[in-house]
């Protein structure tokens, strides 16, 4: 119950990104079903496995949120790209909230974000000099994230959780497409752009 209230508060705090909030509520609405589904037939270890996978995914979302924050504060982004970055960051916050909610609902503890200094080092932020560099980092991140979500789906005990990941992967894929367009790069001609 407190979880739900807490997530509502988070959602209210991120008001202004209306669409995102609706998506997050829809996913959170599935939670009791998710929790039942995750342990089904496979016992405690399957549930723990699901929690672990969700927590790894949550780590990716924390990283994305901080990377977009660093990008937005860098002074390297001009409008309308800056606006895009802020919208995408809002989506990642929505993913973070949905994943944290799912993890708590399954009885796990959501991982915390690392420090900004850690991300600056591990993402190689020092090498970033202009808007195109920021876009390329974001593009690589979104591609990797879409692929990561697709790649973990078969490992879930709970099918509903795989569907949550599919929803998130679709968001990351559309981010990738828009960033690719913003960079003026062609879309690959072969099928299966992701996965």
């Amino acid at each position, binding site marked *: 119950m407190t979880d739900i209230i807490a997530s509502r508060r988070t959602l209210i705090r991120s008001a202004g990104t209306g669409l995102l909030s609706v998506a997050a509520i829809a996913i959170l609405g599935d939670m009791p079903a998710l929790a039942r589904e995750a342990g089904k037939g496979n016992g405690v*270890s399957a549930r723990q496995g699901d929690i*672990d996978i969700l927590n790894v995914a949550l*780590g*990716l979302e924390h990283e994305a949120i901080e990377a977009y924050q660093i990008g937005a504060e860098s002074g390297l982004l001009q409008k309308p790209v800056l606006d895009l970055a802020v919208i995408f960051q809002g989506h990642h916050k929505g993913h973070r909230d949905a994943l944290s909610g799912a993890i708590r609902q399954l009885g796990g503890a959501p991982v915390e974000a690392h420090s900004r200094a850690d991300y600056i080092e591990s*993402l190689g932020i020092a090498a970033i000099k202009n808007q195109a560099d920021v876009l390329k980092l974001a593009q690589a991140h979104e591609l990797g994230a879409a692929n*990561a979500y697709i*790649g973990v789906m078969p*490992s879930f005990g709970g099918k509903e959780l795989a569907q949550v990941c599919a929803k998130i992967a679709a968001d990351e894929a559309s981010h990738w497409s828009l960033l690719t367009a913003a960079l003026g790069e062609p879309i690959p001609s072969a099928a299966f752009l992701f996965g």
Partner: protein
Amino acid sequence: MKWAPVIAAAFLLLPAGAAIALAPAGDAVRGAQLYKARCGSCHSLDANRVGPAHRGVVGRKAGSMAGYSYSPAMRASRVVWSPQAIDRYLQNPQQMVPGTKMGFRLADPGQRADVIAYLQQQGRTVRK
């Protein structure tokens, strides 16, 4: 990827973890691209991120990258990351190391061979 079935077959005939002297099947250039796109959201060569740093992983004991917070299962596992062990892990990590945090699977044997060839080509572990 005509080598992949051969390696898979050879592996089946040998005890797990045995060293197999086979020519590398994968293409490290393709592997570099795949590594970036498939593993790159969680891993990089030199930084511990969501997953541990990978430089020098081939031949390394599982769960031994300094400064990374592994699952208890990975730390306790006795796996040494031979190319064959990585190939098995990527097919279904939680089956090979029950309790591992990595759920990501790479189903295509050719792609696994390419990524492993790339990892093999990347030199020794850089400790930070």
